[in-house]
Every structure is written in structure tokens, then in C-alpha cells.
């Protein structure tokens, strides 16, 4: 079963997004060990959309569906420019403290923790899909 919900472009929505995801985990009996990964990937992608796609006021849609031994999650942003998170430069996690910056870690963590990431861009609609599966 797939579920969808739209959220306004505010960080205050994060608590409702977490509740939405956890309800889906319980109803669909998704492995709870995947919750941290899903919470983190959804937050990082949502925050990135809110922070950088500032010329739209459309809600962001989140879809969730079971996938084999885990879950598939999509975030869709409407009337925005193309942005493929897979093109982001990797963070140098071995860099010394003085050259480490506070930003840039979010998408790096998504790419590191999700099992796969897919990107679609059509008619100014940007859709990022990731899969988190039990190993």
C-alpha cells in the first residue's frame, strides 16, 4: 500500500513528517531498524528542498510504499529547477577541523545511507526517490 501526504515548506513540519513515517512503519510492519535511515534521508531531502527551492510556494509531497525487505520513499517538489542530489560533490570527511564546514553534510549522508537513489525531472517537477532495505 502506498501512502502520500503533502507538507508545507517549513522546518516546523518535521515533527509531522516523522509521525507520518512512523505510522507507516507500524501499519506496514516495516523493519524498525530502518527508521533512523528513513527519518534522516527524508529530513535532509526535505530541508534541502525548503532551503534551496525558494521560488515556489507549493507543498512538498512525500510518498511511501513497502519495497521488498524495506521501504521506498519519494519527495516531489513542484515548479522548481532541476537538482539531482547524486551530482553533489562528496564531503572530505578526513579533512582537518579547520577546513570542515557546517554545511554540505546532509546530502552526503543521504547518499551514504540510502541503498539506492533515483532522480526524475519533468515539467519543472523534481522527484527524488530512495530505497532503504534491510541488509
Amino acid at each position, binding site marked *: 500500500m502506498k501512502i502520500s501526504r503533502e507538507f508545507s515548506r517549513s*522546518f*516546523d513540519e*518535521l*515533527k509531522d513528517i*516523522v509521525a507520518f513515517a512512523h505510522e507507516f512503519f507500524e501499519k506496514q510492519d516495516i523493519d524498525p531498524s530502518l527508521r*533512523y535511515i528513513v*527519518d*534522516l534521508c527524508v*529530513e*535532509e531531502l526535505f*530541508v534541502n528542498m525548503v532551503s534551496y527551492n525558494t521560488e515556489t510556494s507549493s507543498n512538498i509531497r512525500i510518498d511511501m510504499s513497502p519495497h521488498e525487505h524495506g521501504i521506498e520513499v519519494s519527495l516531489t517538489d513542484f515548479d522548481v529547477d532541476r537538482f539531482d542530489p547524486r551530482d553533489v560533490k562528496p*564531503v572530505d*570527511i*578526513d*579533512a582537518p*577541523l*579547520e577546513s*570542515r*564546514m*557546517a*554545511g554540505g*553534510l*546532509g546530502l*552526503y*549522508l543521504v547518499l*551514504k*545511507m540510502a541503498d539506492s537513489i533515483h532522480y526524475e525531472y519533468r515539467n519543472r517537477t523534481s522527484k527524488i526517490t530512495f530505497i532503504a532495505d534491510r541488509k
Partner: protein
Amino acid sequence: MFYIDFGEDSVVVIKGRLDAAQAPTAQMFLDKITGQCVVDLGELEYISSAGLGVLLRTHKRMIADGLGLKLVNVNSHVNDIFTYSGFDKLFDIEPAGGAE
């Protein structure tokens, strides 16, 4: 739920979920602290990159004065995020259950 305050012996205690919505509150609290600082993360359930940014900015500010943050009681989920982020190489981290 999110909580940040001083505990016993001036240790800073952070509990709950440190996400992008709560990061400004945590940053404002930590910005007021000078000198050596120990942060107890024993009841921190979740941290995202926004929370990591708060810790990194605070640590860099304190290191400039020759001190820094020490993170204690770090659970395995949060410790995984620190490792993925390379924070294990930047911070003095003591996992839950005592120093390794």
C-alpha cells in the same frame, strides 16, 4: 521532543531529536558557553546534519581558545552518524557504557 540544559557538574545535556527545527535553539544555548564543555548525549535519539552543524560550529569556536567539546554517553545510532560524518576524527567521543 527536544531538550537542552545544564545537568550535574555543568555538563550540557541534550535529549530527544536534534533536527533542523531544533538546531537554532541548540545553537543559541551553546553559543553562550565558554571554556571546556562536556555534552551528555545519552538520551539523544536522533541527530541530522543540522545538529551536526551545531556541534561542529561550537567545537571550532572552542578549539580556537584551546578547548573543545567532549561528547559522552553516545549511543550506537548517533555514533554511526558521527562516524559517517568523520566526526570521530574531530571530537573527543565517549560511547555509552564508558570510554573505550
